[in-house]
């Protein structure tokens, strides 16, 4: 069993999910409440990773962070090494790749908050920020947890983008999906199966426990 790859994948997915939480909430807020007419353009960009082949996304990310690009050069000047084929590069690519899986559940949760509550909050003297913290966020918890879990799970299982951007460096960019691919290529079906089964069980456990938390099957049904 390739424990290094498993640990790397979990670390990557955790970091990406947390960054997407911080990044996705303001984006989702803006997408929900902005009255700008050109909003659909941004919505289109955010949803792009849903339809693009991972290889296309990976290729462009690779070009954007390569040593010839401004981003790559700036990164090298700052850290002393390049971005491509590093863990940091992988994080960046995964953030883009999983963006819609965080933003869309966030935005859909925000849009379901009754706007009268927001009006009431304003008439009670609360700033937009206070309204967001005290009203919008607590009433969107389910959507936020869903977005967090989906972006985690989606990053955990990604393959194409990782291969394009990260390559296959043990302990640095060899994630669990790539490890399984390697094992299959080397006809080590037993080892591949073990890793795959672990990933399957882990993914299921995470998803099921989140949905359990959201559904509260142990709670007494509320009287309407």
């Amino acid at each position, binding site marked *: 069993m390739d424990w290094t790859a498993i640990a790397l994948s979990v670390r990557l997915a955790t970091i990406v999910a947390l960054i997407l939480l911080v990044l996705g909430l303001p984006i989702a807020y803006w997408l929900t409440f902005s009255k700008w007419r050109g909003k659909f353009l941004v919505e289109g960009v955010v949803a792009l990773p849903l339809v693009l082949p991972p290889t296309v996304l990976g290729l462009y990310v690779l070009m954007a962070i390569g040593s010839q690009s401004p981003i790559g050069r700036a990164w090298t000047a700052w850290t002393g090494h390049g971005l491509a084929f590093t863990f940091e590069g992988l994080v960046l690519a995964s953030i883009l790749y999983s963006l819609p899986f965080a933003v869309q559940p966030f935005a859909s949760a925000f849009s379901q908050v*009754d706007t*009268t*509550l927001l*009006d*009431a*909050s*304003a*008439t*009670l*003297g*609360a*700033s937009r920020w*206070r309204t967001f913290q*005290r*009203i919008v966020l*607590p*009433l969107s918890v389910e959507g936020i947890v869903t977005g967090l879990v989906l972006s985690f799970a989606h990053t955990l299982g990604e393959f194409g983008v990782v291969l394009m951007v990260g390559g296959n460096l043990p302990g640095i960019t060899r994630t669990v999906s790539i490890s399984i691919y390697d094992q299959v290529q080397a006809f080590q079906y037993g080892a591949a199966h073990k890793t795959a089964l672990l990933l399957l069980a882990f993914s299921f456990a995470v998803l099921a426990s989140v949905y359990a938390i959201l559904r509260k099957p142990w709670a007494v049904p*509320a009287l309407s």
Partner: protein
Amino acid sequence: MSARLTASIRKRLSDHFTLDVALDEAQGITIVFGASGSGKSTLLRCLSGLLTPESGEVRVGATTLFDSGRAINLSPQHRNMGYVFQQLALFPHMSVERNMAYGVPHLTPPERQKRIASTAERFGIAHLLARKPGAISGGERQRVALARALVSDPHLLLLDEPLSGLDHTTQSRIIDDLRAWNAAHDIPILYVTHSHREVFALGERVVVLENGRVLAKGTPQEVMDAPAHETLAQLAGFENFFTGVVTGRRPDLGVMQCRLNGTTTELEIPLADIEVGAPVRVAIRAGDILLANQEPRGLSARNVLPGTLVFTVQEGPTVVARIDAGIFFTVHLTPGAMETLHLRPQCPVWLVVKTHSCRLVAL
């Protein structure tokens, strides 16, 4: 301190609807009355700053909340008003106490506690403070919404049909509590409603809106009992409208006669400055017409019309009867009266209408 609400507002919502209203209201309850779509809620939203008018001014006492000429437009957060929404908009994830505390974060905890306790006491919800809005009754929720809007001691209170959907007893209890609060905190209150019953129960003053404009204003008696227009009469609960022709005038008795169009039925109506031969429009409340199952004699009422009962329907505590007296009348009576009179469809009946129950409205 006398802090009047003075406002003039122009807000265009669509090609067909522009709110164009001027108000000058003292402390106490002013009813804003109108059908749905007349602009009542839009008016409140403009006053609260949730909507920005194209032009106008809003002032409470010496404080200017909005002035298009001077480019002043305080945000809703800074207008120091209470607003109760028709949907109440209680925060479902907070207890009653936290809902009430929401508008007063600037107070010290002991001061806040004191304010919430006394307001909750006044509105009879002190025992509900720990509960969430989903776990209390409709009437209690309405009390909480009122109390929440008042904790911050606002200078203006805007109520958008705050008691709709409640039974009459609960409504009047809450109104009594609101009046008691208003006696201690002398601020202008705008109370929006489309129920003419609430207008009489509540207001010293009523402003009637129609299609974004003020149709009439005054005391409920002035505005609702002697409606100048048919739309107003409909709003005020008049059910019967007839067009007729003046056939005779008796200035000495303060009355005149008219014949209802398409019939030979003559009605005696209050005298007005209308010539013989000219058309008139008469409105009569269904509740102002008496019904008899034999021809009544020795009455002071001048209009006794024979007819036939067509049908009856029970609507809540009222029986609505349709009577054909050459022209159709709607009459309200109680189920008890219905029984005593042994009324059945096709029965002969007599309608009794006092002269002054016939209101002239503009054609």
